[in-house]
């Protein structure tokens, strides 16, 4: 989709090779706000990654509600400018105010020019420490957490997001004789397109404040709550059941 394309492009420019996760649909974008809880759907394949799914719960829903709301740190805005020359995209530039360009583009074309402003919102490491010292797990445990505990699913909390600063209209334009082109048209941007070559257009409007990408930390829920910013593969949200307990069909056993 056009939205997913934009999200991927932004992640590629701002966090290439990092652990920011692009949001795949505009519809689910609001579910990935800071402090929201998400689960990672297991993948049945070695060839496609597990997907994150929001569960309509925030960390505030599982903690005792008697502390002031912690603030978020703002970063950016980052200005992403994408230039298209009518055949293939030729350059992408990312500029951070006060720091100049952080990634350079090469050529400039007058056929199509695109622009997008995003900023980051993140929970500082000290905020986590303070939050977890002052607030404790709500009892009884939330029903959704109970279900996830039964399934042994890991639960993650969103710690950072990239959001659009202004509404942006994204148009994917296809030329009969050429490659697919993407252009963004926001309040601050110019858009120029050739005439007479277009055969198909798809447009989506991304509202301001839409989340394009997010970063997560693992929650470990025992007697208290821990937020693990850099989890290792062995760490789990819920303690495994005692030895000897076997849920219906440990799946591997059937195959064996």
């Amino acid at each position, binding site marked *: 989709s056009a939205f*997913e394309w934009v999200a991927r492009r932004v992640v590629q420019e701002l966090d290439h090779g990092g652990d920011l996760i692009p949001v795949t649909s505009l519809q689910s974008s609001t579910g990935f706000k800071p402090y929201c809880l998400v689960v990672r759907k297991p*993948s*049945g*394949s070695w*060839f*496609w990654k597990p997907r994150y799914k929001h569960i309509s719960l925030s960390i505030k829903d599982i903690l005792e509600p008697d502390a002031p709301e912690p603030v978020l740190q703002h970063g950016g805005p980052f200005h992403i400018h994408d230039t298209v020359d009518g055949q293939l995209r030729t350059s992408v530039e990312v500029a951070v105010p006060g720091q100049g360009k952080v990634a350079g583009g090469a050529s400039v074309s007058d056929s199509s020019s695109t622009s997008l402003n995003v900023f980051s919102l993140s929970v500082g490491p000290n905020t986590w420490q303070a939050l977890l010292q002052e607030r404790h797990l709500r009892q009884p445990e939330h029903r959704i957490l109970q279900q996830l505990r039964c399934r042994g699913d890991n639960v993650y909390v969103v710690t950072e997001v990239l959001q659009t600063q202004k509404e942006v209209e994204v148009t994917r334009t296809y030329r009969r004789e050429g490659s697919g082109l993407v252009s963004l048209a926001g309040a601050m941007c110019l858009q120029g397109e050739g005439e007479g070559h277009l055969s198909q257009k798809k447009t989506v409007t991304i509202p301001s404040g839409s989340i394009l990408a997010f970063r997560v930390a693992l929650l470990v829920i025992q007697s208290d709550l821990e937020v693990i910013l850099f989890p290792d593969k062995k760490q789990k949200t819920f303690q495994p059941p005692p030895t000897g307990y076997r849920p219906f*069909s440990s*799946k*591997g056993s059937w*195959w064996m």
Partner: protein
Amino acid sequence: DLSMKGCIGNFWTDGVPVNGTVTEDFQGLRAEVEVVSKELALMDGQLCRLLLEGLERGLRDQLALQALEEALEQGLSSGPVEPLDGPAGAVLDCLVLPSRMLVLELAVPVVYLLGALNTLSKAQHQLLVEAVELKTLSRQLELVGSLLEKSAPWQKCSTLSLPPELLKSGWGVETPAWVLLEECGLELREDPPHVHWEPQAQDCVCALYASLALLSELSQE
């Protein structure tokens, strides 16, 4: 390892976990898909038809598809499954015993297929339904397989030309093959037919290949 990967791995080499030997290339993907495909091939013809009909209806309703995947995953980890309405219910009913326990031999391959389908977009779902109806799955499968084979190593960008013999059903912005690949995030060119491979498209193209292969297996007469 109770994940699906563990299941497939164990089954793949007759009980020997395969985790150490998976290669992240087209041969590895094809081998993984063949394991699941063989399981589907053992199913009764009428059951295959019922499953395919249910999945076709599910592909028109993304929420149903997700609900079905959710229910099957829950059933695989914690026992009896609750009945579902609509297309999800129709597929689920093919996979449970009267006690509402899942028949694992049936449920595991279907969960794998649903995982692949749920990685794809709504537009791709619609095109898969059309491909089932028009019996063009194998043609699309051949094209996507060829692309995955040629684009190795997947971690690097590359530009690939597409062989004309795989484009007999047409190649252009409105053709199904174009849209199926374009929705994966690949940049395409019409004349001459080219695909610009992006490493980020790997997950989606692999899921598309698996979906085409397994729907094709279910469609076998």
